[in-house]
């Protein structure tokens, strides 16, 4: 039988940096095919070629059996190929309905927009995914997860025959993921073909019929779930390129139970509130303890982290460190007390993209009050080199521009910049969003090391597996309140989901 889409030996490089060296891919009608690979393995480049955004340097593309040469995104759209972008392609200052209709407005012969019809179309599109947003909201006012859903809605409203989803679930909560999966299965029944790119292996094993793995710009393998079992251990070696061995196994394994009752309480939060966002949040973190913040997306977890890090102000409540009440007015004061935040949006909050690794890594150190006016550059360079090794940055080059690093390595820099300052309390805001499995393991190891050194960690993760792998206790946040605390062996997927949804 013939494939609906076939790519043979695609090559593409940017400024001499090879993104794809030999990528081949096939897609059958009415199947969901996973595309996996580490950060920088060329998945996104491949998706962009298929959707006509960039042209390959070499290789052939066959669509519906005949060779094609996509010249533009518009052409791809005419051929019923739609893509959901990882970095959102929505116009922030336009409303939801305007975005859905963008580029294919219905107009009168005089060029005047037929708003009524556009609204009807937008409403129908939104209903498809049961998104709870208003057509008149500006995209910039939507929560990240709603923006992602809107992005998907927009792609679906074009009635594609081939749908490419580039990490669609990275900023979605699991409830939303469920809805998306239902929709995908329905699309499959309607003979739509889907390319599903994700770092979350369990999503791939759940929804995909087949998967293709990329490594360093090459197609390295294919798994057909009709013949092979849906198991992580088959997939992970394909992504990492390493033979499966002991320490490859289960990066998401539950950490052994540790008892902290005898340890000193480092941070105590007492009935912390923020108007409309948080209500009477109270918890304690002991020395070396790793506490998770769980629950659905956007229930106030980020606000808790932002208040503790001094970026947002609380309306009431107390924060105590070592049993002393403290007032944190700005991030600078939080940092002085050893409370560091690893922000969630690395490009907006964590990095100076147009500067090099060195500048990024030393910045918090330079910003400290005790830093001398004339910088001890030699010492700083040495610290940076140590940090680079600690976080296993690839390439280990302090002069590399951060914008030229892959997403995972950028994330390493965001965490790395705090390591030389010896944190006491580390706040992590969804640190592995869109990060590949190798980097993830690396970050988990950093967290474990810090915890062993007595650093207390407060981790918010949108991904339950991550909480299971790292946390000693998990606090479930729901509508700005802590509704449950799950400890030790009770931390498992079922319990986390049940508590998040408040079903008992």
């Amino acid at each position, binding site marked *: 039988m013939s494939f609906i889409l076939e790519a043979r030996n695609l090559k593409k490089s940017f*400024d001499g*940096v090879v993104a794809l060296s030999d990528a081949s891919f096939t897609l059958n009608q009415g199947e969901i095919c996973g595309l996996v690979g580490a950060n920088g393995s060329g998945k996104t480049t491949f998706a962009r070629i298929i959707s006509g955004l960039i042209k390959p340097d070499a290789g052939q593309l066959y669509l519906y059996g005949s060779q094609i040469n996509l010249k533009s995104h518009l052409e791809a759209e005419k051929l019923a190929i739609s893509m959901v972008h990882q970095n959102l392609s929505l116009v922030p200052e336009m409303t939801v309905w305007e975005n859905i209709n963008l580029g294919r407005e219905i107009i009168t012969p005089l060029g005047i927009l037929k708003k009524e019809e556009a609204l009807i179309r937008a409403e129908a599109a939104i209903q498809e995914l049961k998104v709870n947003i208003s057509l008149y909201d500006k995209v910039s006012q939507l929560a990240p997860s709603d923006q992602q859903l809107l992005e998907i809605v927009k792609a679906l409203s074009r009635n594609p025959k081939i749908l490419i989803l580039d990490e669609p679930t990275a900023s979605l909560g699991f409830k939303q993921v469920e809805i998306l999966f239902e929709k995908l299965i329905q699309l499959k029944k309607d003979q739509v073909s889907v390319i599903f790119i994700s770092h979350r292996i369990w999503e791939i094993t759940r929804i995909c019929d087949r998967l293709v793995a990329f490594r360093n710009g090459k197609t390295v393998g294919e798994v057909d779930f009709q013949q092979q079992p849906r198991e992580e251990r088959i997939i992970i070696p394909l992504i990492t390129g390493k033979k499966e061995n002991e320490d490859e196994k289960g990066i998401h394994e539950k950490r052994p139970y540790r008892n902290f009752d005898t340890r000193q309480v480092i941070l105590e939060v007492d009935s912390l509130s923020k108007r409309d966002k948080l209500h009477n949040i109270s918890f304690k973190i002991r020395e070396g303890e790793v506490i998770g913040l769980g629950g659905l997306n956007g229930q106030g977890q980020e606000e808790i982290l932002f208040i503790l*890090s001094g*970026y947002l102000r609380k309306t009431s409540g107390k924060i105590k460190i070592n049993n002393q009440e403290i007032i944190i007015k*700005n*991030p*600078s004061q939080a*940092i*002085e007390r050893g409370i560091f*935040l690893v*922000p969630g949006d690395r490009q*907006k*909050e*964590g*990095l*100076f*993209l*147009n*500067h090099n690794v*060195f*500048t990024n890594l*030393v*910045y*918090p150190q*330079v*910003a*400290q009050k005790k*830093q*001398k*006016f*004339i*910088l001890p*550059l030699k010492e700083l*360079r040495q610290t940076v*080199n140590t940090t680079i090794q600690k976080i296993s940055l690839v*390439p*280990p*080059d*302090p*002069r*590399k*521009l951060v914008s*030229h690093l892959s997403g995972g390595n950028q994330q390493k820099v965001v965490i790395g*910049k705090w390591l030389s300052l010896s944190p006491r309390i580390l706040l992590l805001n969804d640190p592995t969003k869109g990060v590949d499995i190798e980097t993830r393991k690396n970050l988990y190891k950093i967290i474990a090391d810090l915890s062993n050194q007595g650093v207390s960690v407060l981790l918010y993760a949108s991904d339950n597996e991550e909480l299971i792998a790292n946390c000693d206790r998990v606090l479930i946040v729901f509508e700005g309140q802590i509704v449950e605390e799950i400890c030790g062996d009770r931390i498992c997927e079922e319990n986390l989901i049940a508590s998040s949804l408040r079903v008992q």
Partner: protein
Amino acid sequence: MNNNQSQNVILDKVSPKEFLFSKLAISFYAIIFLFVLGEIILPGFISFSHVMSVLRLSVFLGIVALGQTLVVLSGNEGIDLSVGSILSIGVVLSAYFLNGQNINIPKALLLTPAVGLAFGLISGLVISYIEIPPIIMTLAMASVVEGTSLIITKGFPTGNAPPLLETIGSGKFFNIPYLILLWILLIVVASFVLKKTKWGHLLYGVGSNNLTAELSGVRVKRFRVFVYGICGAIAALAGLFLLSYTGTPYLNLGATYTMPSIAALAIGGISLAGGNGDYLGAVIGCIILTTLNSILVALRTTEAVRQITYGLLLLILVIAYTGRRKR
């Protein structure tokens, strides 16, 4: 950009090829080109004394451009349209403080920048805390400062530069004007502060992403107030040096400096979006603009032709600069 994988690389080192095509180098070629062009049109243009006099004329713009550089580097649409007016009031005030007496020099050196600092701090406070766009705030401030100098002088500035200051303004050391030596010193100090000190480092960070800077522990708002303050102080100080050159004060001497101080930055490859570029670029931009101006003056062109050529050159350089970035 190059894939250097070595573990302990020395920072700041640039490969020769990269250097030849760097923004700075391109601007430098432009200067050489202009001087050669000047020589063809007007023999004697590249004689030592003429080059020196062109460079001396660049000094005032150069000092103003330093303040502008800091503001632009600090990002968030940072721009200061009040530098010209503050320079004007700097001329008038320093003449008033000096009153032709050498003994008044320390007083003028202290008070003139202090007034500029005050104006700058006010702009900075409003920009940072009330979040008025810099372009609007500094435009308003320019107007206020102009009015203030009219009130102070009642339309007729008084006082003049004392002999010692006049020597600095027009004297030479081994045929090199003192002002140029002073500028070189300023360039060295400014470059050092930008590249090697805590403050310079923080400035680049604030300019390239103020949210990251804030979350890294910088008091961003306060920092930006300070940057505008410094810019004001520098502009006022430039007024004092301009007085040393003219001897007697005139109203609105600074009006012609505001736009060139921004153009010089664009020519010198300082990103107007903030966070990237260095003072040396601005210096070269200032020299280019002054050289071009003196060629056009020598050609006895009309003001109209001069302005059109100015605009065209700016465009060509900016295209050369951004075109390079795309490669």
